[in-house]
């Protein structure tokens, strides 16, 4: 039985670099270094593991983003994904999560899927709601925020660690899952994998291909609007003392002065 797995990934500004906003109050994705979102590496990893455990499975990696987002696809292909789909259209620029989910859902319908795998959140927007929105739009079950996941007999099951409880969940395919950073360390691409990735197919799609009206997405089509952006003043360093046997007492004196104790 074939199993069509599609992993949704995002190309994000490097969190260790200088992240900032462009003049139109969108995330600056051009003047900064970008990469495959670290949290999406866990999604790629789990998709590959599920494919390894299921005969005839195929892993497609899907992204929505500008030209440079192909770097994220390349990374996922070099880890072992079979093929890639890149939705790239200037009119998508500035979309909010509602718009992005509409584009991704249309691309998933066009590509075909049995299992959609996402990371737990992007490292730039950090909303963590896209997988739920995809399930809503596609009309399939969501089994999200899983720290363990497996697929057998047309059913996906896994462990969801919430604040109040740990739940075991399962859903018949087709379904959307998201996996956490506890799901298992992502593999590094091998040299062979990097070379092979160069020959793997990358399909490009635009809004016309997906039958989406440009006015429904992008900055103008967003259902939210940024009013004001303020750089937080850097925290100013307070007093730093070196412990010479009295460090704990000095710290206690500070906390008492601040009325914490």
């Amino acid at each position, binding site marked *: 039985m074939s199993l069509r797995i599609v992993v949704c990934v995002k190309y994000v500004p490097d969190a260790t670099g200088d992240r900032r906003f462009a003049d139109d109050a969108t995330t600056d994705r051009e003047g900064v270094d970008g990469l495959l979102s670290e949290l999406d590496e866990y999604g790629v990893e789990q998709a590959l593991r599920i494919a390894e455990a299921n005969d005839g499975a195929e892993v497609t990696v899907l992204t929505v983003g500008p030209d440079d987002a192909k770097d994220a696809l390349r990374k996922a292909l070099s880890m072992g994904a079979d093929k890639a789909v890149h939705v790239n259209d200037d009119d998508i620029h500035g979309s909010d999560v509602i718009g992005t989910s509409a584009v991704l859902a249309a691309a998933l319908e066009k590509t075909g899927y049995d299992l959609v795998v996402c990371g737990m959140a992007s490292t730039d927007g950090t909303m963590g709601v896209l997988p739920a929105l995809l399930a809503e739009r596609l009309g399939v079950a969501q089994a999200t925020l899983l720290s363990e996941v497996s697929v057998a007999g047309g059913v996906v099951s896994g462990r969801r660690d919430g*604040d109040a409880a740990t739940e075991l969940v399962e859903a018949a395919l087709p379904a959307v899952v998201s996996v956490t950073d506890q799901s298992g360390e992502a593999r590094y691409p091998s040299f062979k994998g990097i070379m092979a990735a160069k020959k793997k197919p990358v399909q490009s799609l635009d809004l016309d291909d997906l039958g989406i009206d440009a006015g429904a997405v992008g900055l103008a089509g967003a259902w939210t609007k940024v009013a004001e952006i303020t750089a*937080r003043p850097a925290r100013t360093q307070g007093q730093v003392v070196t412990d010479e046997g009295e460090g704990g007492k000095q710290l206690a004196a500070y906390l008492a002065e601040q009325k914490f*104790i």
Partner: protein
Amino acid sequence: MSEILVLVDHADGAVRKPALELLTLARRLGAPSAVVLGAGDAAAAIAAKAAEFGAEKVYVADGEEFATRLVVPKVDALTQIAKAAGAAAVLVTSGGEGKEVAARTALRLGSGIITDAVDVEAGADGPVATQSVFAASYQVKSAVTTGAPVITVKPNSVAPEAAPAAGAVENVTVAFTGNAATVTSRTPRVSTGRPELTEAAIVVSGGRGVGAADGFSVVEDLADALGAAVGASRAAVDAGWYPHTNQVGQTGKQVSPQLYIAAGISGAIQHRAGMQTSKTIVAVNKDPEAPIFELVDYGVVGDLFNVLPQLTDQVKAG
């Protein structure tokens, strides 16, 4: 006044503090209505608490679906109640499940969504939400422009204030829809007796410098003396020294307590993203060059195994 729905987060039959914070914020926007889902026999007590904090109305819905099906039953209920009430806005506590419920509800209502607000104020054109983004290096104010705003708010964003209101209970029968995953087993988290990490006024966290799982006892001792929650850096969690539920950072909890004490934590961006908005930051680290010291209000360069126990003794001697 327009109705502002607050999805009440509850556990073990009791209202969780963030729900009281949401009711406090909702009063700035209109007339708060609490939504209590799947609380069973505890619903009446939860409704009474919600009324104490300003709920004019309390919508109560129950059904085994809330426990056996993932996310979707809450979306069904919240959407149905929001439509029937003509709600002007919907507030939900930020958290893994809360954000998912909020997002699907927003899509069904045709509403924009803002997540992880740290403040919400009334504006000329509806609620204005403040978010702290890019590892808390920017503050962004934004608004929903389409539909009744759905906003998720982080715990500890405002101090809950009591404001007794009618709290008229309205029982709602929910038409469950949709394709949901099944919850086949549920194991409640065993309480440590310490405050919830995201709700605590004081958090004491340990990192790589703690050195081993055993080492966390000095962190826990200080936390218990202060009545604080215990956190851990990703390095400590990845090493298996402390549970992931206590991880503070970009991929763990984002905390914003009155006092944050970082012990043996270097202060990588991953960690800073989770604690940088704390009011007062204190660090203890052997390495004087550790980036955490750039953030501190007070820092001690030294061995945490000497400094923390001495501090704990001082706190106990109080």
